[in-house]
């Protein structure tokens, strides 16, 4: 009997890393969060780390949904509290690798305090902050990262508040590793995530990502891919640049690269040492 050659079902290399039963995802066409997720998945693949020991925590918002698509133990928590929740996980079981993926509004606005203090304590977390300059999930409100004078629904006459500089805040608070890439720097981003992952202490990777639905539409900046390319073409790689110079102006060049890489004692080390001393006394 003649056999018919059928196309064999092939496994995508990321199948093991993503919850394929949840695809299609909720993100809009042209969104940069997908890139961040695949870079992250790529990083996990490169790391060859035991995925059972990896935990992903995210907050609320578009990027907050990432946890739901990564096939590790994953938590989708409350708005802004992903880092606090992750702190509990890390201290509860120090053997785990805990990764927080969330948006700019979640991490820097409402979660700003947890961001600052986790960096200060130097809790061993890797934070991936997807910065799309806007609150996208709620329909395009002004975020602390929105450049001047971008239009949003709650800055209907143009934003006038100075935007936050995420790498600078991270550095000032005490993060040990800080990098920034745009959503199209896929390989560099993945490498950065690998580095951050391996660094003991609080590490931050910022991903500049387009919001095709709100930020772009309100400001008439084209579709998601246009913006992604714009960010990519207008980025300048400057490793070790002083974080003072990392402000992002509206539709101007974006400095990317690895800015901070240093060592500080992590929280759990200090705690254990203190407990030991306490015991001796």
């Amino acid at each position, binding site marked *: 009997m003649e056999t018919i050659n059928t196309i064999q079902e092939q496994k995508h290399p990321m199948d093991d890393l993503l919850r394929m039963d*949840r695809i299609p995802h909720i993100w809009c066409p042209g969104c940069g969060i997908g890139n961040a997720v695949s870079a992250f998945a790529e990083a996990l693949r490169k790391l060859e780390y035991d995925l*059972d020991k990896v*935990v992903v925590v995210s907050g609320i918002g578009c990027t907050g949904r990432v*946890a739901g698509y990564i096939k590790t133990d*994953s*938590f989708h928590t409350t708005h802004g509290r992903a880092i*606090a929740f992750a702190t*509990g996980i890390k201290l*509860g079981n120090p053997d*785990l690798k805990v990764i927080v993926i969330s948006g700019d509004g979640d991490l820097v606005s409402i979660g700003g305090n947890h961001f600052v203090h986790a960096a200060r304590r130097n809790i061993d977390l890797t934070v991936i902050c997807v910065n799309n300059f806007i609150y996208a999930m709620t329909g395009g409100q002004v975020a602390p990262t929105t450049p001047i004078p971008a239009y949003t629904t709650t800055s209907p006459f143009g934003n006038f508040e100075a935007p936050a500089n995420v790498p600078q805040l991270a550095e000032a608070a005490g993060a040990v590793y800080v990098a920034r890439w745009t959503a199209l720097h896929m390989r560099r981003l993945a490498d950065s995530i690998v580095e951050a992952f391996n660094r003991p202490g609080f590490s931050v990777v910022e991903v500049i990502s387009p919001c095709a639905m709100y930020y772009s539409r309100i400001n008439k900046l084209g579709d998601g891919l246009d913006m992604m390319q714009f960010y990519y073409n207008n980025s300048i790689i400057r490793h070790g640049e002083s974080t003072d110079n990392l402000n992002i102006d509206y539709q101007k060049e974006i400095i990317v690269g690895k800015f901070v890489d240093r060592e500080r004692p992590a929280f759990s080390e200090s705690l254990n040492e203190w407990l030991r001393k306490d015991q001796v006394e």
Partner: protein
Amino acid sequence: MSGYEACAEGALAAGCGFLGYTPIQPSFGIVRRFITRCAETGATFVQMEDEISSLAAVLGAVWTGRKALTVTSGQGFAQMMEHIGLGVMLETPCVIVNVMHDGASEGIPSMPGGGDVMQARWGSHGDYEIIALAPNSPQEMFDLTVEAFSLSERYRTPVVILFDPVLGRMKDSVNIPEAAKIRVEKRKYYKGPKDGYLPYKYDEKDLIPSMVDISQGYRFHVTGLTHDEKGYPVMNDECQEWNVHRLVNKIRLFADKIVRMEEKYLEEADVAVVSYGVVSRDALTAVEAARKEGIKAGYFRLQTVWPFPEKRIAEIAAGIKRFVVPEINFGQISLEVERCSRGRAGVDAVYHAAREVGKPGSILKAIQKTNK
């Protein structure tokens, strides 16, 4: 041992391995005791930047397999409201100790209060049921803290312990039994095959799903959004019904098993004094004084404030004329008593009874008044 210390010891005896806190008066006695015992018990602790993150960290720690505790007071408890909701939604067992102080907002931090009782039940948005315990002596601080951990593990819910600074500072002998004699409910773990785990597939008998720890390879996902059995978000009213109805009923239907109370002199009583926490000590004195005067007074104490012993109150109401409900607030539990008495017995609330702690005058007066 003081009440604070008894609480910390109770937590450690129940196997609590994590404390997340932010310093706030007057809850700090518990923290101090807990921290000094950390090195020998292997427990860990973290002082977070605010109460919001304290409870968030506690919820995170629980999923690593530890039992976890947070302690707070007054406004700190108010800050925790959002995460009580998350704890309920994720069905995360944890214990929250709230040292109630007097007054709204900052009130009078070192004075006992009772204004957070309804807050413990209703404070977070959305519908849920919760368990709240109210000890009235250092010994009971110990016992009920252990019980709180048991209940939280059994029903997979945050459990609140409500007490106040007077009980916290009160020194009394506390009997801590041997470790082997302390019975704590074990967490209900999933034991089936790895790919068959569904985080919110509940047992028809008790409506409680089983848990797994992080890092055991189940690769589960949980979310504060309304979710299905898999833990994945589903945004429709059927799924919402599926969640909320069960969250409410997993406690409501088993209230009889959870409820703990103490009764005295209630047979043939005309007046029943319903109280909880520190006030109950004075209530008992007042009841006994009234009985000496020949008034048939009975004593009823809530050890679990929530769920409320509805049935028992209704039964008592049928046999008495009036309830007297002394509280350190302007009427909270007295409303519940009124509801459950179903018009069979009147209710006299004694407001702010505790500003006279140690002298049950106002309670006694209220009892005497009912007799006229």
